[in-house]
């Protein structure tokens, strides 16, 4: 296995690049030329670290889930990104990007959001820095994620409905990109995942890499070894997975499991399992795997989890999966819901539906009794309570959900 990193043109193998209209070129070029210098600047580093510690609450714990381990007859550790301020890993990236935007002299922030988690994380850091914030969100998502819309507004952000196309995450992203085209000088676009034109996938992966950086010393404390045998993370665009894999990408003994949302079933026509259903193409400025028609029209995906409901996948993950470095696993809505209830009963933790997908993968992969497995618990489930309750009331006995046999 070759060293896995982005090359100077922004490619991971054959995936990545910057397929953008000329109108975006100066902005993206500026970012490309500056991001590494800024991130390596000691002042930046100090400010970023101090906010992660005192504001976000890092390091996030690495917790040995004993009852879960006992059930699955192995050793399962949870990386508790759900305990971060705002309830998910998303804020690691928004803290990094807002500090970068300040150094680039930008006075206006735009972002896209699907479920609203990245929108809330962006609105939060904009409030913290006193910078104007506009979040694009599909009309359909605004309706189904009302509490997060309210949170963003309370934090002082303007939530602009994306009315074009299918009115969900992909269209919110299109609208944010259009806003950036119209405001090329004063605005920074905070993308929420490891997607978009280079340098975004690499930059976001670096900001999220704090997850695996902490895992190294935390695992050493727990097990005496810095490396686990497996890392399991859910992948929509793939930012929490990129962060959890980052410092292990070149350790080929560490198995990387990428869990995608299969919706109602991989081949049901209502799915977001991009690595299975996707073909090579371009989405949001990146050459990657995406769900599209033979004519290249982008297909609207489906998952019960709004955070995994994306027709593409970050170019890093397209490369990892295509090259065999990462193993892709698909988990349906129902399997994820059951895993969410199971984790709640076994460990007293209600996971976000996205993260619940990652837990369900434990049923689908091989592992040994002595393996050390880290599951990235990317977010907390408060935002999904309504969906969980609806499922519970849908005639599935609560007891069966908590019992081992039904999962």
């Amino acid at each position, binding site marked *: 296995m070759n060293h896995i990193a982005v090359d100077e*043109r922004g490619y991971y193998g054959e995936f990545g*690049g*910057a*397929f*953008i*209209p*000329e*109108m975006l*070129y*100066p902005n993206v070029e500026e970012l490309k030329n500056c991001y590494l210098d800024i991130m390596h600047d000691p002042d930046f580093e100090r400010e970023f670290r101090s906010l992660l510690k005192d504001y976000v609450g890092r390091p996030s714990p690495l917790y040995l889930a004993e009852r879960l381990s006992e059930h699955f007859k192995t050793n399962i550790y949870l990386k508790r990104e759900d305990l971060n301020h705002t309830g998910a890993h998303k804020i690691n990236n928004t803290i990094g990007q807002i500090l970068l935007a300040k150094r680039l002299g930008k006075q206006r922030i735009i972002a896209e959001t699907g479920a609203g988690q990245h929108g809330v994380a962006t609105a939060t850091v904009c409030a913290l820095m006193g910078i104007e914030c506009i979040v694009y969100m599909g009309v359909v998502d605004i309706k189904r994620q009302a509490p997060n819309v309210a949170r963003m507004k309370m934090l002082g952000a303007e939530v602009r409905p994306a*009315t*074009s*196309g299918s009115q969900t995450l*992909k*269209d919110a992203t*299109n609208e944010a*990109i*259009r806003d950036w*085209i*119209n*405001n*090329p*000088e004063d605005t920074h676009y905070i993308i929420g995942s490891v997607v978009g034109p280079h340098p975004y996938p690499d930059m976001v992966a670096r900001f999220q890499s704090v997850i695996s950086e902490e895992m190294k010393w935390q695992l050493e404390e727990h097990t005496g070894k810095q490396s686990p045998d497996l890392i399991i993370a859910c992948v929509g665009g793939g930012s929490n997975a990129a962060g959890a894999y980052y410092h292990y990408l070149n350790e080929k003994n560490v198995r990387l499991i990428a869990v995608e949302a299969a919706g109602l079933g991989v081949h049901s026509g209502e799915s977001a399992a991009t690595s299975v259903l996707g*073909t*090579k*193409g*371009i*989405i*949001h*400025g990146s050459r990657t795997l995406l769900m*599209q028609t*033979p*004519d*290249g*029209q*982008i297909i609207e995906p489906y998952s019960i989890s709004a955070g995994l409901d994306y027709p593409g996948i970050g170019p890093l993950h397209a490369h990892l999966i295509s090259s065999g470095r990462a193993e892709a696993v698909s988990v349906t809505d129902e399997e994820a819901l059951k895993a969410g209830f199971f984790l709640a009963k076994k460990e007293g933790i209600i996971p976000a539906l996205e993260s619940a997908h990652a837990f369900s993968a434990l049923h689908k992969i091989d592992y040994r009794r002595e393996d050390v497995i880290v599951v990235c618990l990317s977010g907390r489930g408060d935002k999904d309570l309504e969906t969980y309750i609806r499922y519970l009331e849908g005639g599935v006995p609560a007891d069966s959900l908590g019992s081992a046999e039904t999962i």
Partner: protein
Amino acid sequence: MNRLTHLFSKKQEDLLNIYFTAGYPNLEDTGTLVLALEKAGVDLIEVGIPYSDPLADGPTIQESGQIALKNGMNLALLLKQISIVRQNTEIPLILMGYFNQVMQYGVERFVQDSVKAGVDGVILPDLPLYEYEQFYRSIFEEAGLQISFLMTPQTSPERIRKIDQLTSGFIYMVSSSAITGGKKDISEQQLAYFDRISNMQLSHPRLIGFGISNHETFATACKYANGAIIGSAFIRALAGSENIEQTCLQFVKMIKEEEQCLNFKENKSGLI
């Protein structure tokens, strides 16, 4: 000779390029629109391949694309329609689309089939200069399919030279920092940009696009470049048109002559 090259060899001023989305308003309108626009006095025509996610376009063009896709338009069908209308016209035709559509069709196959159908040039706004130069330039040049690259007010002089070098048809000058279908007036700042580019003595003709919607903006663009491109304003005129030929005629008159412009506006408002 490539029809674009031929056009530019005999006319360098006031070139009018009208854009329409293929498959809009109806699936089979492509041929009618091409012939009607030619008859109305348009110099070259840009035909948009409808796309689900047109990043550089505003709501007017995106909506027309969605309707066209619903009508069943696709690249293969469009090329067939063009090859049929090509038997009756020599007007230069340019295809505009996003690179993913071309990738899925196959770049080589796209270039060859386009030339075979009678297409003279293409505009692919999200195909980067670097990718084109490294991987695709020879395919386009061998087939004689011209390609226009975009420049904007923020494009650096070195990059403008590069664009001039790689462009093989005309340079697409984006009038301002905006998506298509934007503002109405042309500002002092834009005029300074137009002036600056005029003075660079580029080797390719320049057409100004984005925000050109009426006689006044067209005339201003023509003062500073070889002509202009109108898209969203024409799509808006097509919406609800009962007679495509009549709409094309009226629209082109409105663009070329100020009085007609007022009449057209009155007619339009009379309908509302």
